[in-house]
């Protein structure tokens, strides 16, 4: 309480000073508890405490142009496999800030989340479900001096872990960003035939070099430029980023070391990345193309961070995030040391009352993703277990890291029944991506080739009552071989839901053919939700954006309560 007392006093003061603006309070909280059971068949993990409880509560107070907020977090202990990176333990304050929100000037002190452009050089973000929190702690100023111009500056340290309160890492992060909307800015001078946005960022980090052998750079600078154009349903945009030499475990560090040289004087390489996208759409039709290439693009505020810690920038995977149960077996994670990727998307609404569209119309969604290894001139430095590349963009290597094709049609068959059918092909190099796990919680070897078919039906039984069901089958010779999944979900709007899910590894010729049944039920009232889940969870990877969390197998009961106010 000591830490928030000044905040309360501060607000009490503000309350006096600006009594014409009422104080508004809002926020949200989430509490989850899990009871773990032994289940040795699937190598289920049971923590010493047997019960895990984690939760958080955000409270935000606003009064006129002033805003302040605090988040309490508790992990007693955290769930098995949570968070994604360095441990979060105990209970305390995870985030607090105060902010002035003026028309042309915004100042934040304390913790904040920020994004420059698409995030290639800076994006500090959070995902509480994953256990990811890259909040900066310092000061941020955003100025909008005239229409069409946004200038941002920030300086701070970054959250590294949680030990009865958030703990910052050693590094210091500094950044500035400027963005111009040319239409707003040059409104009176030029009449553009579309919307132009251009921007640029500079970000640097400082961290003392304590390494006795390697001469790591203490200051690392990075910069990016971006452009976006839109006219009607046409958009094109891109961002290029450059990072000065930044040796880390995720970047490839050493290139072409002559035999006579000690590895400690190896050549550290810079990093670069380019992302481009164009799309065109009109009513009932949309098409998009994305191309991206990365080389040595890992930028973390702490040199000795794990793969999920202290990220300053954000490298999203090019593949589409799949929410179909069995498709989640093979999630792609961006390879920061180098990759070349392409994606195409198509959306089409076949008109109603046409031959193919049917009475209510039919929706078609197609996407294709290909991600390739770059042409690495690889040099292995076995002693330090590092390898290096020349940081080129769009050079084509031999290995396909990931490929998927998926198509989905959705159609309302009658007033009461809506159905969809999805097909997906996946090629997944698990030696590189390391996302597919066996029953001993270890990644399997080799490339997985899989086909997936999923059918979903949604049937309105009577007013407010709905039954949704899914049948999914995954066919592969690799990993754990064939799977079948059934989902049935009964909802009574607006309050109740009950769902039953089973995943069955029927085709596993080399091992046990396990079932993974889960029953879940809940009650929702406005913004409050309580749910109870019981069952077996398979080992796997839980991903959001560019970060994936490895979740070991478990068996047990989970109770979850969330609320917004």
């Amino acid at each position, binding site marked *: 309480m000591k830490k*928030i007392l000044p905040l309360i006093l501060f607000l009490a003061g503000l309350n006096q000073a600006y009594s014409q603006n*009422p104080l*508004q*309070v*809002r926020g949200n*909280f989430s509490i989850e508890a899990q009871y773990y059971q032994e289940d040795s068949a699937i190598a289920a993990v049971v923590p010493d405490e047997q019960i895990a409880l984690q939760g958080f509560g*955000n*409270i*935000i*107070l*606003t009064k006129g142009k002033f*805003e302040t907020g*605090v988040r*309490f977090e508790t992990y007693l202990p955290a769930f098995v496999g949570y968070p994604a990176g360095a441990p979060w333990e*105990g*209970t305390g304050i995870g985030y607090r800030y105060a902010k002035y929100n003026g028309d042309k000037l915004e100042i934040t002190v304390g913790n904040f*989340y920020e*994004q420059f452009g698409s*995030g290639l050089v800076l994006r500090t*973000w959070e995902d509480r479900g994953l256990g990811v929190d890259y909040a900066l702690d310092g000061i941020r100023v955003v100025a909008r001096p005239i229409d069409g111009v*946004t200038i941002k500056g920030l300086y701070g340290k970054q959250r590294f872990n949680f030990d*009865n309160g958030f703990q910052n890492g050693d590094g210091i992060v500094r950044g500035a960003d400027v963005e111009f*909307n040319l239409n707003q800015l040059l409104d009176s001078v030029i009449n553009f035939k579309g*919307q132009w*946005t251009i921007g640029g960022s500079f970000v640097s980090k400082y961290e003392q070099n304590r390494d006795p052998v390697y001469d790591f750079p203490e200051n690392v600078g990075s910069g990016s430029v971006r452009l976006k154009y*839109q006219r009607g349903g046409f*958009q094109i*945009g891109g961002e290029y980023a450059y990072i000065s030499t930044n040796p880390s475990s995720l970047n490839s560090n050493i290139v072409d070391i002559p035999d006579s040289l000690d590895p400690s004087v190896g050549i550290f390489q810079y990093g670069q990345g380019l992302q481009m996208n164009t799309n065109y*759409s009109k*009513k*009932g*039709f*949309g*098409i998009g193309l*994305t191309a991206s290439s990365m080389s040595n693009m890992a930028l973390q505020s702490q040199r000795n961070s794990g793969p999920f810690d202290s990220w300053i920038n*954000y490298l*999203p995977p090019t593949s589409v995030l799949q*929410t179909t149960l069995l498709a989640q077996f093979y999630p792609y994670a961006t390879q920061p040391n180098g990759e070349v990727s392409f994606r195409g*998307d198509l*959306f*089409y*609404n076949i008109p109603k009352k046409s031959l193919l569209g049917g009475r209510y119309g039919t*929706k078609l969604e197609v996407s294709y993703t290909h991600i390739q290894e770059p042409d690495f001139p690889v040099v292995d430095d076995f002693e330090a277990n590092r390898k290096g590349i020349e940081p080129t963009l769009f050079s084509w290597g031999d290995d396909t890291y990931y490929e998927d094709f998926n198509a989905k049609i959705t159609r309302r068959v009658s007033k009461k029944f809506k159905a969809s059918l999805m097909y997906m092909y996946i090629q997944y190099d698990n030696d590189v991506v390391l996302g597919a796990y066996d029953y001993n919680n270890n990644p399997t070897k080799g490339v997985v080739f899989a086909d997936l078919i999923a059918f979903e039906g*949604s049937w309105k039984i009577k*007013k*407010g009552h*709905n039954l*949704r069901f899914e049948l999914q089958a995954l066919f592969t010779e690799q990993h754990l071989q064939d799977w079948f999944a059934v989902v049935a979900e009964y909802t*009574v709007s*607006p309050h109740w*839901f009950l769902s039953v899910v089973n995943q069955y590894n029927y085709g596993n010729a080399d091992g046990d053919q396990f079932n993974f049944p889960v029953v879940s039920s809940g009650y*929702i009232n*406005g*913004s*409050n*939700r309580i749910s109870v889940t019981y069952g077996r969870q398979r080992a796997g990877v839980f991903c959001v*954006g560019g970060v994936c969390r490895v979740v070991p197998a478990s068996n047990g009961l989970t109770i979850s309560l*969330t609320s*917004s*106010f």
Partner: protein
Amino acid sequence: MKYNLLLALSFALLISSVSAQDVKKTIPSATVKSLDGKSFNTSDFNNDGKPMIINFWATWCAPCKKELNNIAEVYEDWVDETGVKLIAISIDDARSQSRVLPYINGSSWDYEVYIDENQDFKRSMGVNNVPHTFLVDGSGNIVYQHNNYAPGDEDELFEKIIGLLN
């Protein structure tokens, strides 16, 4: 430190129970982007004195798309009858943002759409998960909110909108 969470929650509940009686909540100030890249302050959202729906969604969120697609089927009628406007806030990040405009057009939605790229607006509205729907009355007060989506929830939302007009 042990009881911090408990203290905070009771503190929050106390404040919200006190403030709920006399203070109506309005839309907080945060910066979102329109699809053509212009910055927009959320406290400027308005619908000329008529009700507004603010819906948080993402292209990767299946129930979100179900909700907005189901509302799209009746949206024209809703607008004719009540003058309501739906503002869809996409929380898609750099991974899927380029799919937002093609998806919206491909789905023939007529909503006003903004992108909350680093989830600043989501945070300031206290949203835990998507989908999350808010109903704002003609004077800008948040009068109702609902988390999650089950088919039929849109009927309850429409009743609330009608309730605002009477």
